[in-house]
């Protein structure tokens, strides 16, 4: 039953109206229905790699020629390969933890490639693909997971905020940033700035996300809320977060919400470009729900076999974001085997370099513990640093190093 048909009984509607309330099964069905290209889901490329025309969104991808689509394919392959390498490195004890993005490459690459250099992105902690599109070197990022660093990149140079681990915090930070863009008069025409904020389906239950929606709405902030609904917040399913499809929440805050096939890189690109354009012109905010699936665990500490059925995974494998682009390119003769082989070779090299870098990453020196706690030095902290370093020097003097 499509969720729009759910109605609550009016007083006096009589007992029959009670049946209009959805059963739990109907709620779940509504939340999970992707309608396969139906009205609720914006899709430009089917899982089989067929191009679906869209009256509304085709114009946002008019410039996507064979070469551009091949680049998007390449982006996704490289990002997935790096993700798998990092996952393996965690299993080998080289990383403290890894947060896999497997299955979410299209949502991240498509939305990330929609951004202009002047736009700002606020990630959660799974946005390795977005980081890649912002020009963040995977090697700058992996220190977080090897636990040598909290954030290795220059956020201003890449216009990519540090990862935020606390669920939903970054949504308010992004709202504030976008308010700043508005206050500085950077919205209003084609050359305007916008901000995009990434969060998951689980985060939508957080107060900060609700407050972020309120703030962005009442201040008309140029903010694209990009929710990657990957169906699972660790072991909590999407129906534990909501009774209605997440994109529909936007209506309650007074801005548009849209659900896009999160496994369709072309649709993610088009819809995000549309949303950013709305924001640039001062018509923001916009909520995008990228309907996708986390193919791997929440993190490497997780065991998804405890809470979800393999049937579900198998079903989503058929909607793989990379395979559909490959099918489209191959079937239409837009790319040949040599292209796919060269991308694979490049991805292998990309991963090998990441591995080499990770294995040889220097440990931070002990005084880094005390470094940059405050902008203005704290005498108390300086004293702690000196005391500890001289304590360490004692071991060196005793020949224990």
């Amino acid at each position, binding site marked *: 039953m499509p969720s729009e048909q759910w109605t609550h009984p009016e007083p006096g509607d009589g007992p029959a109206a009670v049946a209009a309330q959805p059963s739990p099964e109907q709620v779940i069905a509504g939340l999970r229905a992707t309608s396969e290209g139906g009205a609720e889901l914006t899709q430009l490329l089917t899982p089989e790699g067929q191009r679906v025309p869209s009256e509304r969104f085709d114009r946002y991808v008019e410039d996507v020629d064979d070469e551009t689509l091949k680049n998007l394919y390449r982006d996704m392959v490289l990002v997935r390969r790096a993700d798998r390498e990092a996952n393996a490195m965690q299993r080998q004890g080289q990383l403290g933890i890894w947060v896999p993005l497997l299955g979410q490459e299209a949502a991240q690459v498509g939305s990330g490639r929609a951004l202009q250099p002047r736009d700002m992105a*606020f990630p959660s902690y799974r946005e390795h693909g977005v980081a890649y599109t912002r020009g963040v070197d995977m090697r700058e990022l992996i220190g977080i997971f090897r636990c040598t*660093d*909290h*954030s290795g990149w*220059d*956020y*201003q140079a890449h216009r990519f*905020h*540090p990862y*935020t681990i*606390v669920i939903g*915090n970054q*949504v*308010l*930070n*992004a*709202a*504030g*940033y*976008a*308010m*700043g*863009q508005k*206050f*500085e008069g950077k919205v209003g025409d084609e050359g305007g700035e916008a901000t995009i904020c990434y969060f998951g389906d689980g985060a939508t239950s957080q*107060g*900060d996300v609700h*407050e*972020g929606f*309120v*703030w962005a709405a*009442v201040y008309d902030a140029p903010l694209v809320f990009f929710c990657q609904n990957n169906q699972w917040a660790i072991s909590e399913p999407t129906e534990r977060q909501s009774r209605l499809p997440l994109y529909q929440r936007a209506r309650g805050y007074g801005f548009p919400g849209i659900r896009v096939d999160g496994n369709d890189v072309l649709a993610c690109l088009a819809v995000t470009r549309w949303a950013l354009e709305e924001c640039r012109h001062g018509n923001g905010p916009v909520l995008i729900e990228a309907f996708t699936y986390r193919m791997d665990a929440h993190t490497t500490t997780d065991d998804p076999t405890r809470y979800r059925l393999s049937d579900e995974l198998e079903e989503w494998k058929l909607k793989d974001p990379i395979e559909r682009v490959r099918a489209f390119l191959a079937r239409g003769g837009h790319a040949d085997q040599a292209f796919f082989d060269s991308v694979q070779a490049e991805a292998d090299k990309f991963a090998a370099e990441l591995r080499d870098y990770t294995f040889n990453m220097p440990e931070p020196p002990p005084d880094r513990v005390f*470094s*940059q*706690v*405050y*902008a*203005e030095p*704290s*005498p*108390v*902290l300086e004293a702690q640093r000196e005391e500890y370093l001289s304590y360490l020097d004692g071991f060196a003097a005793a020949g224990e190093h």
Partner: protein
Amino acid sequence: MTDLQKLTIGKALNLGLRRAMEEDPKVLIMGEDVGKLGGVFRITDGLQKDFGEQRVLDTPLAESGIIGTAVGLAVRGFRPVCEIQFEGFIFPGFDQISSQLAKLHYRTQGKVKMPVVIRVPFGGGIGAVEHHSESPESLFSHIAGLKVVSISNAVDAYWGIQEAIRSDDPILFFEPKKLYHSGALKMEVDTSTAPSRVFASQVVREGTNATVVAYGPSVKVALDAATAAEAEGKSLEVIDLRTLSPLDLGPVFESVRKTGRLIAVSEAPSESSLTSEIAARVQQECFYSLESPVLRVTGFDTPYPPAKLEEHYLPDLDRVLHAVDRSLAW
């Protein structure tokens, strides 16, 4: 040329905020009711009228939202000054304060600056209902990366708020709400010359028999006690901490080495508090100078009581004098 004005703490804050806004167009004021109403304590009175709704923001009612968006505005290069209406309402914002505001500078090794001030009216003695009279400053002092300061007089209010706004560190600025509009506390503020440094401990009254250290509303109590003690022939040195985190105890150590005795006064509950920290550090640094144990005069380890009982809860002149007597009798 001096420019002297006789000001209450509240008016000094208002003028200090105004001057900071005039000097830097990136300074924003944000909070609930700070615009048209001028804040529930009128500290931001008239600012929206003169600086507009885009620089004095009447925000939606959510503390996490106020602080979380201030963090984002700071990333963008603004210098937000948030007002939390009453200290007891700050806790929805605790997550943003501890998780983002305090840590972004460290997390990015200094690339992200967090020039955010959160103004927090705090303390009791105003006969209010619950959540309106608390002293949660110790909770925030425990968060590394955050600076916590408190003012007790109009000079520090005027210059301190400007110093806090100019700082690139995030600052929780605790204001003694009971004293905002006290006519008796009006003080001449020289608005032409800034003190060299507001946020360092300061000896506010010299003495020789014992040291009393306090901050915020308790400074007045300590000073009143010192005046009363003098009539009994006892000379108390009073120190206003002003900066609560990182705690500047140098002048306290120096004073204790002189007097040999210390009484720490605060309205907050005593367990795991700033006064605990002071006692621990003073015994560590001044062990051979101490003539008696460090004593504390604080609120009790209870939730803030109904206001009809607050006179029993709050440290007052007599409790401080009693502690002084106990210290001297050792």
